[in-house]
């Protein structure tokens, strides 16, 4: 295949597959716990870290990681200490991050460079970033599998989970850290403005067809990987922006699944009528 002859595309495909696998797995918990806003707040926080990283001459992905961890800690603080105001707290953190990113972006010395992080630049990944993405995504995936039961129970019913002996605070903390790490590494590649879509769209598509929690996780990861591959192929052959192509591929999967389900329902009703 032409696409595999290029080193940068081989890297992009590896990163796309890893992010497409890991982000929707976490996305299942994000969606089921109604925390999509948290994903948004973290992705916007990553922008502030990227801008500060660029100003200080540090690796922007590391800047994004630091910013995401700080934002995650602040979100955890609100969730624990002021649970009734947690939603407002998340909105305030997101607003502060956007404000900081907006101001800091004026000092990054080149709008084009910062712009790459808004919509991603998966085809321009260096060795350091490739290593970082591989290490972080594999770490996230392993932790997700180790905490599979805890994350499922806390998403299902936090109160019952606590009574069953699940360390709910530890589980919530680990989940927030995993989400922050995944958002930080994906900001460079998929784009800070698009990463939360990769967290939500494959999960919503999977929920249309899955019949269990396990199937939802598998289908979300499958749709995430498929969207990444289709998006990257589309980007290579049609000259499209990779981050946007990946998200639009996910949206196309969602539409196809919803329409397909509706069609199969109508068809089975029609067949039943004919048989009776």
């Amino acid at each position, binding site marked *: 295949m032409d696409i595999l002859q290029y080193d940068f595309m081989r890297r992009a495909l590896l990163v796309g597959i890893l992010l497409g696998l890991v982000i929707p797995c976490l996305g299942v918990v994000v969606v*089921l716990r109604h925390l999509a806003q948290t994903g948004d707040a973290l992705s916007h926080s990553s922008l502030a870290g990227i801008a500060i990283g660029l100003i200080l001459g540090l690796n922007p992905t590391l800047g994004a990681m630091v910013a995401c961890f700080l934002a995650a800690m602040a979100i955890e603080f609100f969730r624990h200490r002021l649970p009734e105001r947690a939603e407002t707290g998340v909105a305030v953190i997101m607003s502060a991050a956007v404000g900081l990113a907006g101001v800091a972006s004026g000092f990054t010395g080149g709008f084009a460079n910062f712009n790459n992080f808004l919509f991603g630049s998966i085809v321009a990944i260096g060795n350091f970033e490739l290593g970082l993405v591989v290490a972080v995504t594999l770490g996230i995936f392993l932790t997700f599998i*180790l*905490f*599979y*039961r*805890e994350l*499922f*129970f806390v998403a*299902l*019913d936090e*109160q*019952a*989970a*606590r*009574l*069953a*002996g*699940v360390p709910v605070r530890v589980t919530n903390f680990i989940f927030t850290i995993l989400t922050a790490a995944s958002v930080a590494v994906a900001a460079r590649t998929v784009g800070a403005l698009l990463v939360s879509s990769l967290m939500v769209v494959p999960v919503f598509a999977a*929920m249309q067809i*899955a*019949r*269990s*929690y*396990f*199937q*939802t996780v598998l289908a979300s990861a499958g749709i995430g990987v498929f969207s990444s591959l289709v998006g990257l192929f589309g980007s290579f052959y049609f000259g499209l922006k990779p981050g946007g192509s990946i998200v639009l591929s996910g949206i196309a999967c969602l539409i196809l699944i919803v329409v397909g389900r509706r069609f199969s329902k109508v068809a089975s009703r029609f067949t039943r009528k004919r048989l009776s």
Partner: protein
Amino acid sequence: MPEVVKVENISFAYGAEPVFSGVDFTIQQGDFVAVIGANGAGKSTLLKILLGEISPAGGEVSLFGEEARRFRDWRRLGYLAQNTFTNLAAFPATAEEVVLVNLYSWVPFPGFFRQREREAARAALAEVGLLALAKRPLASLSGGERQRVLLARVLASRPELLFLDEPTNSVDSETVDVIYSLLERLNREQGLTLVMVTHDVDRAVRQASRVFCLEDGSLLELDQQQLKEELAHRHKHPARKGRVD
């Protein structure tokens, strides 16, 4: 009979608004206790205090002889919360998954559920009459069936003490009968201790061995005459211990 729950002189207030005070009672193993009272009387709050979810303003609560604040042996307790089944209507999980996950403490971390836990989950589903629906997603079940799945979830871990908050609220009459007959059988045959908050005075009188009434900031155990009056809606607390004015 061993003492399972001991409550000594507890009080609770939301800010400056007193809910109840001077509440004392003990529950022995094998008791089936119903707590009745008007909306806002503090029935669910009392349950949350017993579970350690919230702390009382004053007084002491002990579970199985241990101070509730220090109690950690959660596997001895089960709790069926009010109206949880309505929140789970769109949750993508099968009935078996929902029951299985409550056996969390049976498998040390990190681990996955094995055949033993799967069999226990299926046995609990059989107990509530839903084994045939074990692999069905929650979304395809009726509200009553989802409530029975949640009851199976708390029963699967074989608790010694079960708290139920309005277990038959908003469910069909068939489910009400299934739930009460199962609770009655488990109480009679296995000595399961039950503490149930309910609005259904008629059921409380018929099913429970003891009935507590929470009214005007105080708790009173009703005797047979008071139960008859309660059914006839004529009950008034004859003696108010530590009444909140």
